[in-house]
């Protein structure tokens, strides 16, 4: 049943947010710490376990995959409700702080990623593409 997949996703989501809130309280910060990340790890573990037990029929998988595929439209909706007016009204301090942060981070990302070995890149790209083909088959 397709709802099993969506329910599994929902349970991982709630559990992750809950654990993230607890983690935040433990650390004494007012926000959630990594709740979504924890939820993602839970879902990865649940998938590996259920596939190993062969308790994961294709229909159940589709209940999760639908929401994964809805991701880009959701992001478009998210973009449409940003406070762009306020962001542009912030003036030069905000623009320069943001621009400087983005530029320096881009250089750091580029530098770190250039340190990855070419063979490792080729291998990783292959697994990514294989995974995608298997998905579509």
């Amino acid at each position, binding site marked *: 049943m397709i709802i099993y997949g969506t329910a599994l996703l929902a349970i991982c989501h709630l559990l992750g947010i809950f654990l993230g809130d607890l983690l935040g309280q433990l650390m004494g910060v007012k926000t959630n710490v990594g709740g*979504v990340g924890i939820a993602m790890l839970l879902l990865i573990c649940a998938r590996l376990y259920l596939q190993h037990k062969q308790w994961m029929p294709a229909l159940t998988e589709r209940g999760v995959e639908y929401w994964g595929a809805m991701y880009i439209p959701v*992001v*478009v909706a998210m973009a449409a409700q940003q*406070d762009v007016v306020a962001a542009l009204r912030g003036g030069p301090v905000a623009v320069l*702080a943001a621009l*400087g942060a983005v530029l320096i981070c881009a250089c750091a990302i580029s530098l770190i990623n250039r340190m990855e070995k070419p063979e490792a890149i080729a291998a990783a790209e292959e697994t990514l593409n294989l995974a995608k083909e298997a998905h579509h088959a």
Partner: protein
Amino acid sequence: MLETFEKAALNNGLVTAFAFVGLIVLLSVALSRYLTLGRVHGSAIAIVIGLGLAYWGGIHSGGHKGLADLSLFGGIGLMGGAMLRDFAIVATAFEVQAVEARKAGLIGVMALLLGIVLPFIVGASVAYLFGYSDAVSMTTIGAGAVTYIVGPVTGAAIGASSDVMALSIAAGLIKAIMVMVGTPVAARFLRLKTPRSAMVFGGLAGTVSGVSAGLAATDRKLVPYGALVATFHTGLGCLLGPSLLFFAVKAVMR
């Protein structure tokens, strides 16, 4: 007749949002194919259209939630709100290759720390150059350059004034928008190809909204890896901002 249609759309906000976003994506894919000959990703165009509509909505309504403040598009607020956004991000984890993610664990943590400290230093320095030379304002604006959530959380904790808070939110928002729009353009320079590179990107670029939209517009397969790291960014920033980073600024400025 038009009134009846408007009422139907108003009473079914989320459904209206699905239809509306579907049309935006359809238009973007067509623009990508025929105007840019596939060179600019359809999702990148869709996100830019979304941001443009947010600006238009903000001007017309005077609110803070872009297009979602116009009652006809209220459903956009639900569809693109934190609940469904996080739900969809978690769902993308379903495609993660656990082995690849584990291999990049350590470098991801390193990127995460750099992704908080570097923007913070830049933001605090810019604040200083513009005359915000007290430790509280420098820390708040620096934290805003980390993400637009870390800024106000830090500012509230250390007692910043509201105009400084507004500046720090603005800095974070502009950063998120720059990451959303700039990532697909800079993908080659950033060497965004592998799960490891996406995790480095997620840690350093921060902001879940920026990272998730930027990667979505670059390569959909890389989204879960970047998001996995980026979701720890805000929490860690809120932890370090009002504590370690604030004390460091105070020590330097004395």
